Every structure is written in C-alpha cells, then in structure tokens.
C-alpha cells in the first residue's frame, strides 16, 4: 500500500533521515518507534507533505507520489493526525470537522454542517456529542477523536497517527486504541507513532524502529517481547528499566487534611526521607491538583503541613521554595522552560540568589553549578549555551526537572515526569530521581502512567474523582489491581 524507498532528509549538516526504506501493507498497522531525534517526526512531516525529502520516493499503491504540500498528501490518500491537537477551540465541532478539507463545500449552512458531522462523530464513538458544541467544551481525548474523525472523512488509504495518546489518561487511551482497531479492520493502513510500548503490543502488527535517522529493525510484534523492542531502540540492552528502590528514613513531610481546588475531600499523606510517593489516577482525578496545591500554586489551599517536624505554611510558590519544596509541573512548555534563553540560564532560574552577591551574578559560579546539574542528568555540556527550546523533548524535560537540584530541595514534586520523553531519557530520569532519594531527597510523583508509578515508586496512592481512595506500598500492588483502582472505585459501587 504505502512504500517509502531511500528517503533522506538533512537539516544543514545533520542527517535527520538517511536513506530510509519501509512499507505498510493494506490493513496493516505499523508502529514507528525510536528515541527523540531518531527521525520519526521527520518521516511523519514528509508523509504529511510539510517537509520535502532531499532524495527518495514515496509510492502509494505502486504510484509514485510527490508530496509537495499538505493538500497533495491529502489527495494522494494520506491523512495525518498530528501530535498536538490541531483543532480550533472557539469553533464548533461541526466547523472543525470541515477545517482544511479538500472536499469542503464553498457554501454551507448550520444544517448541512450538522449533517456532515453526525456520521463522522458516530464513527469515532462521539455520537453523544452535539455537532454545535464548541470545541473547547470537549475533553482533550474527545478533541483528539474529532481530529481523527476529520482525518477519516478524507477517505484516506493511509492514516498516520503521531502520538495520539500522549496527553490522555488510560481510559481515554482505550477509546482511541479501540477506534484504531476498527479502522484497521476496515482495510486501511495505519502508521502509528508512539512512546508507549504497551500500545504497540495492543494494536500494531509490526514495529519499525528508528535510530539516528536510520531504520534499524522491523519487528513482528506477535513474536516480540518488550526487551526486544527496547534493545533495538537503545542499541544496547537495558539492564533494568526501573532503578532498585532504596532505604527509607524518618518522616520528612506530613500533610494533614489538605483542601485544594480540584479535590473533593481533604487529603492527608505522609512522606519519608528517601521515599518516592506515586500518586496516580485518570486526568482530573485530583493527583495533580493535590501536588499543585502542596506546591503553593493555588492560594486558597488550607492544610496542616509539617516538614521535618516543623510546621510550615505554604501560601504561595515562594513559601514552598523557601522551605525546600520544589515543583515541576506536567506542562513544560507552559511553565517549565524559558524559550529563547540558554540552557544554563534556564537551569539557574530557581537559584539566582545563590549565585548573586551584592546584586551581581557570578557567571563562573553559575556555569559551574549548571554544568554539575547537566552532568547529573547527562545533558550534553556543549549544549549548555544553546537555547533551551532547541533541545529534544527528553532533554527539555531534563532541564525542566534538573533546574530544581540547584535549590537543594528537601521535597521534589513532579507531575508527569516523562510525558513526551523517549525511553533512554526516561530511564535516566528514573535513575536520577532514585539516586537523589538515596541522598536524602523525598519525591512525590503525580502520573497517569500506571506502569511508571508501579516501577518507580515506593508507595502508591490512587486518586479517583478528587479523593485519595487507597494508599499501599508499591510491592503490595499488582498492575491489574492498580489499573482497576484507577478506573473505578469499588466503595462507590458498594454504597450505591
């Protein structure tokens, strides 16, 4: 069906793709895997007509096609759902479904829009959504599904999905995956880019692994195991994906009856020295709300907080910083990185006062401390003077996280520590969090990735609908028990 032969693309001296060959058969679903910067995104851009290859041929059904533009790619029968939701928030669902469509009519009425939208919505399991609903009223998962519905309406032969589940919670992911299975069953081909290996095993027939711009493996999923794929991605065997847990010390932090926006009832937790506490749940379950409240992000928070035996009040972010509570939010683009500012200045942002004497910044001290942090997280030291937003996603996350080390925090609060981060950087981030804990740091991770929480944390608390419903030692959880708890609340059934 889709055949890519000898496709190359260079940006300046950097070869992003080096003579790549791969093919997708009719009704086949192929995963594109690889670490950040391996070449997946470049290939997706070529398939969507956004980037022209320097060499090579893309053919569909045996016909060579020149994908000069997005419109050309559409006409050729390739529909692409980009990683970021590409819908217009203020327009209605029905209007969004027509956006950018080649076949969009010149004139339309609200009624024709609605009629066009209804079958498309039903096709992606959104039959209950009224076509006139403003896009912004939908959840991110629903927006993603509308995006897919639009791609499907083009009668595409090949559907390219670029990390469609990156910002979704587990239950929402199920919906998207279910839809992908249906599309596959209808005989269309699927190219699926992802960082989540379990998805590959659920919906893909074959995994094509990229490394440094080349295809290094094409693996039949049915006969492969997780280590097989991870090994191909890394080029070397990962001994353990998750680090060994360490010793736990005395109580570091006690939070009693915290009330914060997004929580349905007061929440209490305790955290020991060297402990990683994982808080998990679906998006909006309250895990992130609790962490943000503890960080001092929501000023209305009321709680009794005891840090190393001393009562502290956290009325604002500066209080939290002063007491050694660092907070790394889940959205690094929004509030984790300073774009256009060099990496070392990004790293030093929370500890400017440490490198300042009488108002002057000591560049030498700043650079040395920043280089130390970079070394801990293995950020390439030669990139310290580059603008932070030119780094890959994994390295950006390391910068967003690493900058807190310079404040010598006692408690590190992290939301979604590895969102949009490749396997290699993920393992490094886990290992460093654990290492810092061995040195006495305590960490609270809020994550909707249950596998991550299970592998990384000492203790796991599950949030459901704004309540902390259960906390157990990690070894007392099984993956199925945890997932079940995340997806529904047993006590709710019992009481109703």
């Amino acid at each position, binding site marked *: 069906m889709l055949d890519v032969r000898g496709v190359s693309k260079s*940006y300046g001296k950097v070869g992003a793709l080096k003579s790549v060959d791969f093919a997708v058969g009719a009704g086949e679903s192929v995963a594109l895997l690889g670490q950040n910067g391996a070449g997946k995104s470049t290939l997706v851009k070529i398939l969507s007509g956004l980037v022209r290859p320097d060499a090579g041929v893309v053919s569909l059904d045996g016909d060579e096609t020149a994908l000069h533009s997005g419109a050309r790619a559409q006409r050729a029968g390739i529909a692409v759902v980009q990683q970021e939701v590409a819908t217009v928030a203020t327009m209605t669902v029905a209007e969004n479904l027509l956006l950018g469509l080649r076949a969009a009519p010149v004139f339309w009425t609200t009624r024709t829009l609605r009629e066009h939208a209804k079958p498309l919505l039903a096709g992606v399991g959104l039959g209950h959504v009224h076509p006139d609903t403003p896009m912004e009223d939908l959840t991110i998962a629903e927006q993603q599904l509308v995006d897919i519905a639009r791609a499907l309406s083009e009668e595409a032969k090949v559907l390219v999905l670029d990390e469609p589940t990156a910002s979704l919670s587990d239950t929402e992911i199920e919906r998207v995956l279910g839809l992908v299975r249906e599309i596959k069953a209808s005989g269309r081909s699927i190219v699926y880019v992802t960082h989540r290996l379990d998805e590959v095993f659920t919906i893909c027939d074959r995994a094509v692994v990229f490394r440094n711009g080349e295809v290094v493996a094409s693996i039949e999923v049915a006969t492969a195991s997780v280590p097989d794929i991870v090994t191909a991605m890394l080029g070397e065997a990962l001994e353990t994906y998750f680090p060994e847990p360490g010793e736990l010390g005395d109580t570091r932090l006690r939070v009693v009856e915290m009330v914060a926006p997004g929580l349905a009832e007061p929440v209490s937790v305790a955290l020991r020295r060297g402990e990683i506490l994982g808080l998990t749940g679906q998006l909006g379950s309250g895990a992130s709300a609790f962490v943000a409240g503890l960080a001092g*992000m929501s000023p209305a928070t009321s709680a009794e907080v005891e840090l190393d035996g001393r009562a502290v009040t956290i009325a604002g*972010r*500066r209080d939290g*910083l002063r007491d050694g509570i660092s*907070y790394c*939010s889940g959205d690094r683009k*929004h*509030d*984790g*990185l*300073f*774009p*256009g*500012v060099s990496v*070392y*200045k990004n790293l*030093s*942002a*929370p500890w*400017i*006062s440490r490198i*300042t004497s009488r*108002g*002057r*910044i000591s*560049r*030498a*001290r700043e*650079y*040395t*401390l920043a*280089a*130390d942090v970079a070394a801990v997280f293995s950020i390439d*030291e030669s990139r*310290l*003077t580059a603008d932070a937003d030119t780094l890959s996603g994994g390295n950006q996350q390391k910068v967003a996280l690493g*900058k807190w*080390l*310079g404040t*010598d925090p006692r408690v590190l609060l992290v939301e979604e520590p590895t969102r949009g981060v490749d396997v290699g950087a993920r393992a490094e981030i886990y290992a460093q969090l654990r290492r*810092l804990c061995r*040195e*006495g*740091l305590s960490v609270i991770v809020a994550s909707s990735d249950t596998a991550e929480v299970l592998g990384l944390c000492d203790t796991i608390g599950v949030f459901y609908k704004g309540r902390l419903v259960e906390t157990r030692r990690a070894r007392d959880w099984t993956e199925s028990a945890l997932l079940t708890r995340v997806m529904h609340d047993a006590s709710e059934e019992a009481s109703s």
Partner: protein
Amino acid sequence: MSRSTVAMERGDAGSADVRRATVRRPSIRALALPLTFVALTVIGAILTPGFSTAANYRAVMLSAATTGIVAVSMTLVTMSGNFISLACSQSAMVAALGFAGLVGAGVPWPIAVVVVVIGMALIGAFQGVAIAMGLDPIITTIAAGAVMLGAAAAVSNGAQVTFDRVLTPFLSSVQPLGIPLPIYVFVLVSAALGWLAHATALGRRILLVGANRAAAHLSGLSAQRVTVVVFVVFSIGTGIAAILAIAPVGGGDTTFAAPLTIDVAAAVIVGGTILHGGRGSPLRSALGAVIVATIDNLMILNGFSFGERQVAKGVVVVIVVVTIIVLERGGRR
C-alpha cells in the same frame, strides 16, 4: 546533595567553561546591526558631502542621545514582556515642561532635576503597579499618555512654558572636550543599563519573566516586582532625557517631543529586541538609536522633508522586522 564539593573538584575547569559560555561565535543576527551601521556610515561618507565631518558626527550623536537614553531605558520594559510604553512622548513632555516650570519659577536647577526625577519615578511606579495588577501594558500606557497630555495642557493652558537658560548653565551649554553633555549621559546610561541587564540578578529576572511568566512564577520570581521596577527605570530615563533636551532650548509647549514614541520604538526594534520579551539588549537599542539618527541625518543632508524622513523610519522598522523573521526561519530549517 553536596553541590559545593562537586564544584570544588572541578576546580579550574570551571573558568574554561565560562570562557566557552560567554565567547560564542557571533551569529548573523548579532553582526547584522554593527555591519548595518558601518555600511551606513561608509555609504554616507561617500555619497553625501558634509556627512563625514566632526561637527556632523557630533550632531548625529546629539540627536541620537535623547532618543537613545529613552530607548535604552525602554529596552528593560520590552525585555520583561511588557511590550513598549506608548506614552514616551507624553512622559518626556511632562518631565520637560515640569522642569521648565520649576526653573522658570525660580527653583535652583539641581533641585528641579531631583524633583522631576522623583516625580517621573512615581509616574512610572503608578503605571507599573497598574500593569502588575493585571492591566494590559498597551492600554495602560496609552491611558497614562492621555492623562499626562491632558494634565499638561490644562496646567499650561496650552501656552509655552519657558525659563532663562542662564539659570541652567551646566545643563544648557557645558561641553567637556567639545562634546555636549547629553552624549556623555547617553553613553553612561547605556553602559549602566547594559550592565544591569546582563550582569545583575535583577537583569536576569527581567529576562526570565519576559521569556516565560508562568515558569518564572514557578521559580519564585515575581513578575509584578519586575514590572514595577522596569517602568520606574523607564520613566526616570525618560525624565533625564527630557531635561537634557529642553535645557538648551529654554522652553516648550505640549507638542514637545511629539515624535519621540515612534523614534524610540524604531531604535528598540532596529536594535533587535524581541517585542514579546525574553530577548534583548539595552546596548543594541543604543546602537539602534544611533542608526536611526544616522539615517535621519543623511536624509536631512540630502534635503528630505520631515514627513519623508518619518516615512523612511517606518520603512526601516518594517525592513528590520521582516529581516529578523526571515533570518530566524532560515536558522531553524
């Protein structure tokens, strides 16, 4: 975490790193501005008789000085993500007329300078606080400009406010080494604010708040405090420039410094400071002001009218902005 011990083990390697950090290979973007200036001067010297004389260079610098002092002060506002103040002209006019009024009323000039500077600091603080509380910087500065213009017109009844230049001997006519006072102040203010922006913690905070306000908040940096400070600095800078501009003239009315806002904006933009914040340099704005003054001067020497010169400034701004965008895109692909 024993950060300090790690730092010590690294020992002298640190200083080599610093050199690598600070000595970067200059980008096209960094060189574009000085090259433009050199090209302009060379072309001017060849094509325009009377351009390449000491007297004319002094005239260029003198006309760049007023705009330059304001532009350099404004750069901090722009870097902090508060766009530009659209009340430059009105601020300068109020400061100038205030100074003229005080001196005319018999207040000794040094006291008049202090009073004007304090008054301007308050005007700046007022706008800064309003913007820090969440008002839009553009709307706030437009409103402040209207209030200042209205107040000045009401107080002066639209008439000239004058004083005897004999009363301000130091400001009006002193020329150490044959160079007028405003040029010294321009160089001094540029150096001071350049240092503030690049070497101090305050300068760093301004940059970070401009680059990403939410991330700055998470890092414990106060965008509110930075906003108030930059508006105070800007307002004081404008006040000083206004005093230096009115002192040799001996008076003015509410149309004093009317074209200043556009000149200052042109200087900041030509200097390459990004209007939405997070990147910029007061020193480059200073050079921007000199370039704008040079273009203006060349056009005067070639007999262009005021209107034609204003059109040219507008065109230059558009060319620079488009060039920056094209260069940036080119750099990314």
